[in-house]
C-alpha cells in the first residue's frame, strides 16, 4: 500500500561518505537494518528518555525490543552533541519508528529518524570541525536545547547540563552489545565468546586492541549529519 501516498519508512537519500561499501550494498543493508540514526536531539536529552519513546515501537512478543542506544558525543568534550543511534533487535521495529516516531517531539524538539547502516565503534563521535555535529557548524540561531549560541545555556537547563557534562567523561567509543539471541546455557565452552551477548560484528572484528587504538584518534567524520 503505497500507491496513493508515500510510506514514511523509506530511508532518506543520505549517503554515509565514510562507509566502505558501495551504494547497492548500502541499500541492501538498509533493507534489513534494525538501527536508526536519530537527529535533532537536545544536548540534554538522556538515553532513558530516548528509551521511553523508542520502546513504544518495540515488539518483544516477536523477539524484539530496544537492543542498545548509543549517544552521539562531541569528540573533544565527550558531551552529547544532539544525535544518537537506536538499535533494535528487528528491522520491523526500526521501520515502525520511522513511521510513528520520526517527526514527533522528544524533550520538546521534533526529532528525525533515518534508517542506518548499523553502528560501528567510533561513529558515536561528532564529525564537525569543533567536535560536534557538522550541522551545528552551520547553525546561526540561538537554540537553548543545543547549548545556546555555543556555551550559554538557559538558567533552567543549568542543572541538567552539569549532569550531562559529567556523564560521558569515561566514554571510549566502545559500545556495549545489549544482549544477543537466546543460547542454551550448557553449550560447549567454544561458544563462550558468543554468550557475552555482543553483536556479531563486534565479535567478528576480534581486533579489540586495534579498535581501541583507533578510538584515541577518532575518525573525524565518524558520525553522520
Amino acid at each position, binding site marked *: 500500500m503505497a500507491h*496513493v501516498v508515500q510510506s514514511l519508512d523509506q530511508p532518506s537519500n543520505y549517503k554515509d561518505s565514510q562507509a566502505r561499501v558501495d551504494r547497492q550494498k548500502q541499500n541492501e543493508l538498509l533493507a534489513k537494518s534494525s538501527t536508526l540514526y536519530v537527529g535533532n536531539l537536545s544536548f540534554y536529552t538522556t538515553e532513558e528518555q530516548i*528509551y521511553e519513546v523508542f520502546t513504544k515501537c518495540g515488539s518483544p512478543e516477536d523477539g524484539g525490543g530496544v537492543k*542498545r542506544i548509543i549517544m552521539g558525543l562531541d569528540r573533544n568534550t565527550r558531551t552529547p552533541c544532539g544525535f544518537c543511534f537506536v538499535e533494535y533487535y528487528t528491522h520491523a521495529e526500526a521501520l515502525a519508528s520511522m513511521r*510513528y516516531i520520526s517527526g514527533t*517531539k522528544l524533550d520538546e524538539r521534533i526529532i528525525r529518524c533515518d534508517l542506518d547502516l548499523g553502528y560501528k565503534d567510533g561513529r558515536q563521535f561528532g564529525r564537525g570541525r569543533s567536535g560536534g555535529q557538522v550541522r551545528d557548524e552551520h547553525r546561526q540561531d540561538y*537554540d537553548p536545547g543545543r547549548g545556546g549560541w555555543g556555551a550559554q545555556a538557559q538558567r533552567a537547563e543549568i542543572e541538567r547540563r552539569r549532569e550531562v557534562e559529567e*556523564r560521558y567523561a569515561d566514554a571510549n567509543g566502545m559500545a556495549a552489545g545489549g*544482549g544477543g539471541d537466546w543460547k542454551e546455557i550448557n553449550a560447549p565452552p567454544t561458544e563462550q565468546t558468543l554468550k557475552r551477548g555482543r553483536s556479531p560484528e563486534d565479535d567478528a572484528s576480534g581486533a579489540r586492541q586495534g579498535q581501541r587504538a583507533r578510538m584515541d584518534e577518532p575518525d573525524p567524520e565518524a558520525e553522520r549529519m
Partner: protein
Amino acid sequence: MSYDRPYNNRRRNRDDYERREVYETPEQKLRTAIIRLGEVDVVQEIPRVVKQIREQAAGSVPAISEGFRIGVTEQPYKIPYYANLLRLLHDPAEGEPEPSTSGSPSLGKQILEDFWKGFQAFLDKLSWRETRLCIHFFAHLTMAKVITVQSMSSLLQSFVAVLDEFGVSHGRAKRAGLCAAEGLMIAGKTLKEESVTNVTDIIDAIQTYIESTASSKRLVQPVALFHANLDSLENADELLESALAVLKALNSADFSESVDSYPQPYADLPDLPDGAAAFELPSVLVPPEIIELDGLSADTGEEAQVKKEEWPEYYIRLFENEVTPNPVSPAGYAVRSALLDIVEIFEVNRKECARLLLEYPKWTLPGTFKPRPGTPAELQPEPVPGKNWQLESALMEIVLGALFVLPQSTYKAIYYIGLITEICKLSPSTVGPAVGKSIRKLYASLADGLDVEIGRRFAEWFAIHMSNFGFQWVWKEWVSDLSLSHNHPKRGFARRAVEFEIRLAYFERIAKTLPEAFQAEGASVLPEHAPGPDFEYDEPSNPYHNAAQSVLNLLKGRAKADDVLAHLESLKTAIGETADGDVNVDAVGRSVAVQSLLNIGSRSFSHFLNAIERYLPVLRSLAQGGPEAKTDILTAVSLFWKRNRQMIAIVFDKLMQYQIVDPTDVVGWTFTNGVGNERGSSEGSSVINAHDWDLLKGALDKANGRVLVARRRVTALRKEEDDTRARAKASGGGDVASMEVDAEIKPDEPESAVLTTAVKAFTSLTSQQKSTLARALEGFITCLGSASSDGQAGPVAPDVVTEKAWHNRANWTDEEWNTWETWGWYRHFCRAYSPYLRNYSTTLGTVSLNKLEGSTDPAALQIMKIWNVATGEEA
C-alpha cells in the same frame, strides 16, 4: 528555524542531482488520473477522466482496471464516484455504434471483467479489507444497474456461508460477516426488491453467529463489570453487532435510508444502453484459511500459531449521538466505518492520514458534518436532522476507539497517538477542544469500571500527547479527586500519567506544570525527588557500607571478574563471622554485588549495559543458587531503582536478555515481591497493579518472543536443508539408477548439527514458555482465589466482583480497589495471552485450576469462567 535553511538547500540540491527524473508512460499517466480522481471537484472531473480514458483505452484495459483497483481499495471514500465513472464507460463513445450493433462489449464491461480478476486475487489471499472494499464497489455498481442483482446477491451469500463453517475462527467469521453486511447496506434496496428472503437470510445468519459469541464478548468489553452479563453496553459498541443493528433498521424501512448514508452520484443516470447486458459476477467460494504446518508443535500436539483479532471488536463511545455519528444508525455506521478504513489504510503515513481524515467531509453527503468555522453562510449546506456532526470529535472518538480495542489494537498504540498529534497539528484550534473533552470523558469513566488495560493506554496516550504539546493540561480541575482513596483508578491515573510525563521529560519540567495541590506530598502524584538510583549501602551507617565500598572500588578499577568473585567470597565469610543473629550471607552478598554493579552503571542505559557486560561472569555466578538467588538479584534491582520504575523494567529486561534470570523468575518475583513498590510495603494481600503488569508483560512477551524466533529459525533451517537435498537430488540426474539410490538414502540422512541444536533450543524455550505462563496463572489464582491454601488472597477478593459491592464502590478503600485492579489484570492476562494459553490449556488447567474445581465460591467461579472463555472451552 533559520539554521535549517542553508543545510536543507544544500541537501535538496544533492537529492535532485541524485534522483533521476521520473517519466510516466501513457499507461501510468492514465492510472494516475484514475487514482487522483476528485482531488479538486469530483463531480466536475468525472467527464474529463471518462474522456481521457476513452482516448487512450486501446490496449490499456489492464492499466485502467489497475487504477480502479488501487482507487477502490486504497481510497474507499471515492468508491461511489468510481462506480459513477465505470457506469459512464458503459455508454458508447460519441460516434460509436450502440453495443447491440457493434457486438463487442463496452469499455466499461472490459474493465469490470479485468477488475474482477483483481478481486479474485484479493479473495484468494484472504486480503479481507481489499475484498470488502471491492464488495462496496460491486454493491454501488449494482445500484447503478451495471451488475445484476442476482449475481450480487449470490456473492454476498458466499460470504454468509462462512459463518456456518464448522469451527470457524472468530476473526474469519467477523470479516466475512462484515463483507456481506456492508454490501447489503449499500445495495439492499435493489436486493430486497429482487428477493426478500435473500435479504432476511443474510441478516438472520449474522444474528445467529453473534448469539454464539456471547461469552467472549464479556472478556473484551471496555467496561469491566465482573458481576454483570451485559449483552450491550451504554458507551461502547461491538462492530459486527452494530452492523447487524444497522441492517435491521434499514430492512425495516426497505433500505430507503441507504440513500441518506451513501452518496449515489450515479443515481440519475439512465439504464445501460440497449443491448448492453448487466455484468454477471461469477460465483465464488471464500477459500479456507491456510494453516501452516511446520511440524513444530507444543507439547499438547497443537499448533502454536498465534492468531490475533479473534475477539469481538468493541469501540468506545465518548460523545452523544448529536455530536458524533451513532454506530448503530445507518448513516452513522457508514461514516464511522469509512473513517476507520482511512485510519487503517494510511497507517504507512500518519501525516497524510491526518490530512485525509480532516478532508473526509467533502466525500460525504452534504450536511453530514458541521461546516468548518469561518465557512461563508451561503456555502453552508442545510444541516441534516440526525447528522450535522462535529468532525473533530468524531475523529477523536474513532481514533481513540481503535486505540482502545481489546485485547490489542490493530497497530501499535504509538501509531494512533502519533495520528492524533498530526490531526492536532493540522487544525489546533478545532481539534484541541475535542482532545480536551475526550480526556475528561475518559477520566470520568475511570470511576465506572473502565478496563484496566484501557486505563493504561489512556495514561500512555495522555503523557505522549502532552509531551508533544508543551505539557499543557489543566490539572486544577482534578484537584478535588485527590480526596479519593489512594488507589482509586482516578488517582492511579494521575500518578501514572505524571510518571510517564517525567520519563519523557524530566522532573522539574513536569513539576512546574502541576498545581500546588498535586505537588503536595500527601497527593503522592509527584515523587519527592527526581527519579534516580538509591544505593542502599551509600549510608556510612549501613552495616555493609564498608563491604559495598570495597566491591565498588574493585568494579570502578575494572578488576577482573574472577577477582571480584574471590573478593565477594571473602566478604561473605567475614560477614558470617562478625554478624550478630541470623544473617543470610548469600543474600547479603548478592545484594551488595548487584547494587554495586548497578551503581557503576547508573549514569545511563549504556553505562548499565557496559557494566553488566563486563561482569557477566559475576552475575552468572551470583544467579547460581536456585530460585532464591534469582529472587535476591531481582529484589536488589528493585531496591536500587525504587525511585525509577522505568529502570526496573529496563534492567529486568536486560537480565532476561543476558540470561541471568528467566522470564519465569521475573513472573514469580512480581507476584511475591512486586507489590511492594507502589504501596511502599509488601505487607498485606498480594495484588497486581499496573506497574506489576508491565513487568509481567515484559517477561511473558520475552518468553513468547523467544519461542517465535526459535520456531522461525528451525523452519528456515529445515527449508534450507530440504532445498539442498532437492538440489543434490536434481544434480544427480541423468543416471536413473543412481537417482533411485539417492532417493532412498536422502530422507534418512540425519539433519545437520545446526538444525539439531535449533530444534533443541525450540524445545527448551517451549517448555520455558509453558512454565512462565503457568507461573503467571498460578500467581493470579493465589491473588484472587480464596480457596487457595496459603491465604495470600485478599479477604475482599470474592466481594469486589459482586453486584452489591460494585454499587457500593464510592465507599471502597484501597484494598477493594487493589483487588478490583488485580481482577482486571487477570482478565487481561487471559484474553491477551489466550492464543498461547489455548496451546497449554489442558496441562495448565489441570495443574492450577484443579483446586478450584467444585468450589461454589464466587471468586473461584469467576476465575474459572474467565479462564474457560479465554481458552475457548466456553464460547
